[in-house]
C-alpha cells in the first residue's frame, strides 16, 4: 500500500506520515428484531490526499454502511460498531468524543448523497442551505454567508448563480441539484469527500458533466475522494484504485487498470463479464448464478462460494484472507492465483 503523503501542513495533532484516512478491520452489525445482520465484516482501506478510491459493490454489500460509519451518521441503534478503527490523519475517530467528531464532519470530511432531492430540504432555498454551512461552522453573518453561497454556486458552474440563489430545490433539474450537493460538500474546503452513488439518479449526458466537475475540483484542491458506486463504467473513468466489496468484505483491491484487464477474484471476473458492452454486440451475457447473500445468514467460508464457478470444499470451510497476489494487488480468494493467471495478470 502506498502512503505517499502530500497533504498541506495540518494544525490538528495529526500523526505525521499517516494516510489521510485509514479504515482498519472495521466490523459493523445491525441488531434487529429478526436477528443480527452482519453488514461489515472486517473492511480495511486507505485514501491519501489527491487520490480517488472507488468502492464497488451491489446493494447490501456494505459499501454505504462503511461510508456512514466514517461520517459518523450510522443509525445507532440498530447499528453497532463491533470492532476496528477509522483513523483520520492517524487518529482513531471512533474514540473521539461527540464534539471532536463534529469538528471533522462537514469541515474535514464531507459527503455527497445519491438522491439530491431528498438530501436537500425542500422548504429552504438552496442559497439558505449553502449559507447555513458558513453560518453554523464559521459564524458568518447572513449577508456574508449568502455572498459565499453565490461563489459556491459559481464554482460548481450553475448558470446565473446570483439570480438562482433564492430558488428552491424543486426548481432545479436533477443535474443542477447534484451540483448544489457538490457545492455544499465543497463549502468548507474539506480534505476528504465521500460521494455515495453521486450520479446514479442522473441521465448519462448529465452524469458525465457531474463526474467531470467532481474530478476537476478534486484535482484542483488535492482532496481525497471515496467514490461509492455499483457502476463499473463510472469507476473506470475516474478512480485510481478500486475496492470491490461483497457481503461486507473487500474481496479484491487493485489499481483501476489492472482490475479491469485482469481481475483476480471470481466475483469481479463475473461482474465484468455480465455487463453488456457498448462497442460490441455480445452473444449471451454471462450471468453470475444465484442471488446476493442474506446478511443474516452469510454462507460459511467464503461468502461468494454458492455462486462461484471455482468453489471447492475449502471455500465452504475457510474464509479466504485478503492477500497480496501481485504487486499492489489483493484478492480474497483461495484460488486467486489461478483466476489471475487465467486472466493473464501475472
Amino acid at each position, binding site marked *: 500500500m502506498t502512503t505517499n503523503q502530500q497533504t498541506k501542513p495540518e494544525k490538528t495533532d495529526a500523526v505525521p506520515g499517516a494516510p489521510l484516512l485509514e479504515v482498519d478491520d472495521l466490523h459493523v452489525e445491525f441488531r434487529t428484531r429478526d436477528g443480527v445482520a452482519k453488514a461489515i465484516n472486517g473492511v480495511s482501506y486507505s485514501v491519501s490526499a489527491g487520490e480517488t478510491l472507488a468502492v464497488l459493490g451491489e*446493494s447490501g454489500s456494505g459499501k454505504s454502511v462503511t461510508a456512514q460509519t466514517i461520517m459518523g451518521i450510522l443509525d445507532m441503534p440498530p447499528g453497532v460498531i463491533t470492532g476496528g478503527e477509522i483513523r483520520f490523519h492517524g487518529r482513531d475517530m471512533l474514540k473521539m468524543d461527540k464534539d471532536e467528531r463534529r469538528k471533522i464532519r462537514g469541515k474535514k470530511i464531507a459527503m455527497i448523497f445519491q438522491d439530491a432531492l431528498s438530501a436537500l430540504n425542500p422548504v429552504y432555498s438552496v442559497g439558505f442551505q449553502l449559507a447555513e454551512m458558513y453560518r453554523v461552522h464559521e459564524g458568518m453573518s447572513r449577508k456574508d454567508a449568502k455572498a459565499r453561497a453565490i461563489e459556491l454556486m459559481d464554482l460548481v458552474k450553475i448558470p446565473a448563480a446570483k439570480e438562482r440563489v433564492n430558488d428552491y430545490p424543486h426548481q432545479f433539474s436533477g443535474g443542477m441539484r447534484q451540483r448544489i450537493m457538490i457545492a455544499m460538500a465543497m463549502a468548507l474546503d474539506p480534505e476528504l469527500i465521500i460521494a455515495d452513488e453521486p450520479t446514479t439518479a442522473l441521465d448519462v*449526458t448529465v452524469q458525465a458533466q457531474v463526474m467531470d466537475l467532481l474530478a476537476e475540483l478534486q484535482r484542483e484542491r488535492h482532496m481525497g475522494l471515496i467514490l461509492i458506486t455499483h457502476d463499473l463504467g463510472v469507476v473506470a473513468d475516474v478512480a485510481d484504485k478500486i475496492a470491490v466489496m461483497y457481503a461486507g468484505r473487500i474481496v479484491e483491491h487493485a489499481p483501476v487498470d489492472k482490475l479491469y484487464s485482469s481481475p483476480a477474484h471470481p466475483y469481479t471476473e463475473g461482474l465484468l463479464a455480465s455487463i453488456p458492452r457498448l462497442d460490441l454486440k455480445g452473444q449471451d451475457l454471462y*450471468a453470475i448464478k444465484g442471488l*446476493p447473500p442474506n446478511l443474516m445468514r452469510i454462507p460459511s467460508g467464503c461468502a461468494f462460494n454458492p455462486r462461484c464457478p471455482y468453489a471447492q470444499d475449502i471455500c465452504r470451510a475457510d474464509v479466504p484472507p485478503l492477500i497480496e497476489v501481485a504487486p499492489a494487488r489483493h484478492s480474497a480468494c483461495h484460488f486467486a492465483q489461478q483466476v489471475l493467471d487465467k486472466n493473464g495478470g501475472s
Partner: protein
Amino acid sequence: MTTAAEPILQVQNLVKHFPLTQGILFQKQIGAVKAVDGVNFELTQGETLGLVGESGCGKSTVAKLLMNLERATAGQVRYKGEDISKVSGKALRSVRRNIQMVFQDPYTSLNPRMTVADIIGEPYAIHPEAAPKGSAKHRVQELLELVGLNPEHINRYPHQFSGGQRQRIGIARGLALNPEIIICDEPVSALDVSVQAQVINLMEKLQGEFGLSYVFIAHDLSIVRHISDRVAVMYLGKIVEIGTETEIYDHPTHPYTQALLSAVPVPDPAARQHRERIILTGDVPSPANPPSGCRFRTRCWKAQEICAQEEPLLQIRTGLQGHAVHASACHFAEEKDIVHSH
C-alpha cells in the same frame, strides 16, 4: 433480423399533449406539455425495438400510449392493421390480451397484499377464456418454472422475494396471456448488475421460445444494444434517429445520438484515452416550450440558422454511405464512430 412480414405494430404520427391549465373553478388551458410529438415506428414479429433517450424525452409516455393506458391526442397505433388507440371496453380488453407490459420497479408494481398466485393468476380472472376453469393454478406454476422461480412458492408474498425475483414475477404476469408483444419499460434498471444479466438472458430466451416482440425502453445504452434488433433514439418527444442496432451504435449520424453514446462510461480504463468525449452543455429544454426548428439545436455544436427555422424531418439523408444510410432528423447528418476507440 429481417422478416419481410407485415409489421405487427405500426405507430403513426403519435402525439400526446398534456394540457397545462390555470384557474380553479373556470379552468382554461394555457399551454401543453408536448410529451410525445409525432412519433412513427414499426415493429415486426419476433423483433426487439429499443427506445432510448434521457428522462423526460417521452419514452415512457410512448409505452403508455402503446398500451392505451393514456389516450393519444392524435395519431394511430395499429395492431395488425387495426387502430387500437381509440378502442375501449371489451374491444380494448381483447387487444390487451396480445399486448402486455413489464414495469420498471418490481417493488411498486406488485401488490404487496396479493400472493404470487393471485398476481400471476389475475390475468386469468380478467380473461377467463384464456385458461379453462380450474387450470389457472397449474398455469401459474408453469409460468413460475418458466421464469426460473420455484413453483412451490406460489403462496408467497412479493416481500419474500429479492428484486430480481420480483422482476421475474412481473415477467411471468406479462406472459400469462400468451401475448405477442411485450412493452418493457426499464425492466432491469432497478436491479443489481449481477442480477441484470440473469433477467436479460431470461427475456431473450423467452423471446426465442414464444416469438415475442419487445418494445424495450431503457436509458442504459449498453443493455439496449445487447437486446435490440433496431433502436430508436428519442429527444423531447420526437425520434431523432432510427435504424438497426449496428447503424445506430457503429454509424450514428445524429449529433444527439453521438453525444449520448460518447457520454456512456465504458468499463475499460485502457480505452478511455482513445475515446472522444462530447459533453453536452445544459439540460434538456422544457417540453412545454420546446425550441423552434430542431429541438436539439440549443445543445448542439453544429447548430446553424437553418436549425432554428426549419424542423429537420426524420428521413434518410443524402451524401451518406453504407450503414450510415438510415433515418436521421438532422440537417447536418454526418457519420461519426463514437464507441470504438481509434
